[in-house]
């Protein structure tokens, strides 16, 4: 099983911000295999969520411009699809789970009606069928008294519950691709863990490809197969999780990793935060956007945009975009 579920070529998003036009996503490309969980990692404001919205076609033309060579979902090119066409895709072949389950559900409709609404929309089921299959879904999502949940309203459920409901909703129509935007960050640790496990299972069971958007490398390590590191709208590194953690090639990635507290034989390591701040998307520096915060940056970095390329000394699927990539860790030991 190595079919490509989603492949994106040169996706760019330009938004109208208070400080003028800003290119918040800058011609990114990546692909997503069936059953794979791909992490999209970066600090807040780096364009992760916008990417997700753009993929779903949720960015209104009044708000910004979305450009791309192609967004292939299976054999459909979403880039060419009309709004009506997209509507048939959304929540059907490609669906999304949001960060804050508290506000993501309509407070005045019962869980049941919201679930079955989706089913009736996409599968053309009638009320009864939709109701039955919703119940199944909730149970599959591991919720015991699904009957009660069906009748209850969002405000009556816990955060974790709501998130599970949302996931159930997202999986309702067995989508090829599921985009999860910080699905667990608003939940307490234990719930977080359970939610993430659920993703794993889903991936296995339906071969759904999952794009997991997060700022938390811990989460990535926990569930993802591969990860994309995003900085200021660009992908600066793409690699299988192992290789990424063992030997990051981009200084930014290294910085992120260094900022994650971890415990090893040497005891608790001191956290080193990346110096400086993320520049505002409306006035990005030329060349490598990270140059301003990078120790090893030179004039080349400040003028020339580094292309993405194989990171030498690492396995072929490890790509990076830096003029002065870090040496592969494997060489050292």
């Amino acid at each position, binding site marked *: 099983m190595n079919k490509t579920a989603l492949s994106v070529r040169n996706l760019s998003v330009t938004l109208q911000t208070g400080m003028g036009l800003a290119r918040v996503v800058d011609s990114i490309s990546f692909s997503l295999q069936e059953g794979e969980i791909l992490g999209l990692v970066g600090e807040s404001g780096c364009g992760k969520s916008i990417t997700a919205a753009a993929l779903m076609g949720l960015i209104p033309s009044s708000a910004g411009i979305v450009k791309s060579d192609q967004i292939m979902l299976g054999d459909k090119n979403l880039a060419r699809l009309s709004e009506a066409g997209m509507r048939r895709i959304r929540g059907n072949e490609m669906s999304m789970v949001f960060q804050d389950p508290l506000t993501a559900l309509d407070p005045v409709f*019962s869980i049941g009606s919201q679930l079955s609404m989706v089913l009736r*929309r996409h599968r053309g089921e009638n009320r009864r069928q939709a109701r039955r299959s919703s119940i199944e879904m909730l149970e599959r999502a591991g919720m015991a008294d699904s009957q009660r949940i069906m009748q209850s309203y969002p405000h009556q459920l816990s955060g974790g519950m709501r998130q599970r409901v949302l996931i159930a909703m997202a999986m309702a129509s067995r989508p090829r691709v599921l985009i999860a935007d910080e699905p667990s960050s608003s939940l307490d640790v234990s719930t977080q863990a359970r939610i993430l496990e659920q993703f794993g299972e889903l991936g296995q069971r339906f071969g759904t490809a999952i794009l997991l958007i997060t700022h938390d490398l811990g989460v990535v390590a926990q569930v993802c197969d591969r990860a994309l590191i995003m900085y200021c709208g660009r992908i600066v590194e793409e690699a299988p999780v192992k290789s990424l953690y063992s030997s990051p090639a981009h200084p930014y990635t290294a910085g992120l990793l260094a900022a994650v507290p971890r415990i090893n034989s040497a005891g608790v390591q001191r956290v080193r935060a990346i110096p400086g701040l993320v520049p505002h998307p409306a006035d990005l520096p030329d060349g490598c956007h990270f140059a301003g915060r990078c120790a090893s940056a030179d004039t080349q970095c400040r003028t020339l945009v580094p292309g993405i390329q194989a990171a030498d000394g690492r396995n072929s699927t490890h790509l990076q975009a830096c003029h002065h990539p870090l040496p592969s860790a494997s060489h050292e030991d």
Partner: protein
Amino acid sequence: MRSIVQQLIHGLLLILGVTLISFLLMVWFGPDQTYTLIGKNATAAQIAEVRHQLGYDQPFVRRYVDYLTGLATLDLGASNSSGEQVTSILKRTLPISLALMLPGFIIGNLLGMALGLLAAFRRGTWSDRLITGLSVTGMSISFLIIIIALQVLLSTPYGLNLFPVRGWQVDSISSYLTYVTVPTLSLILVTLGYNTRFYRAIFVEESSREHIVTARAFGASPATLMWRHVLKNSLVPITTRFMFSIPLVVISGSLLIETYFGIPGIGKVSFDAITSGDQPVLKAVVGLTAVLFVLIQFVADFIYRAVDPRIA
């Protein structure tokens, strides 16, 4: 159950307050009708006589309590100036006011909702700007200006001269329409600006909620978003506005329109009552408005529970 009891108490307190304040203003400090009732060359004795009949010589508490009991037993007494029973006055005038105000009130709100919805839906586009711009303009025109202008334009030789200048000689649908048109138009024009703006704000607020994005992400069509999600979520503020402006529109609004167009509705009657100091009428109008308010609060509360599960 407890909440209903609380509401009852709250309602009673409200009625008590309204009646007390208005009694103070309109009755205790209000205009003294004695001198409109005495004839030429009245003697001090006759004046005292009239004051006594009007009950002006009673102590405050006594008069206030009488008022409340009268209100409670719906025994509203008779008008001082015409001698007509207040209840029959109300029976006569209230229907007129309703017939006069309701069309404008309802159309005004529906139109406002429609425009607000359109503007919210086309947020940021030229049509939105146009609508909001017009509503601000509308809000900046005084009621009186609108009335005068419309009257000149529609009911005088200087304009189209289509409708009667004033009055209310209604005995058929057609005559009703001729008399109600200009007032209704003025009422709509006056309220439309505020309504549109209000409803737009609400719809914008609701349509910018997270769950709307979710719904979109699950393939909901714009129509579904607006009619299903936005509208249902907006029901609470809408009902509130709608319900609570009823008494004010029927009394305050009709007061101006009816005095200007000389229409014998509750508004004109209560204003005449103020100017002439016809206290039985005043007391009845104010008292009943307060009661109406409380009732409306009950109804509104009921509706809230129906539309929003979060309000338990």
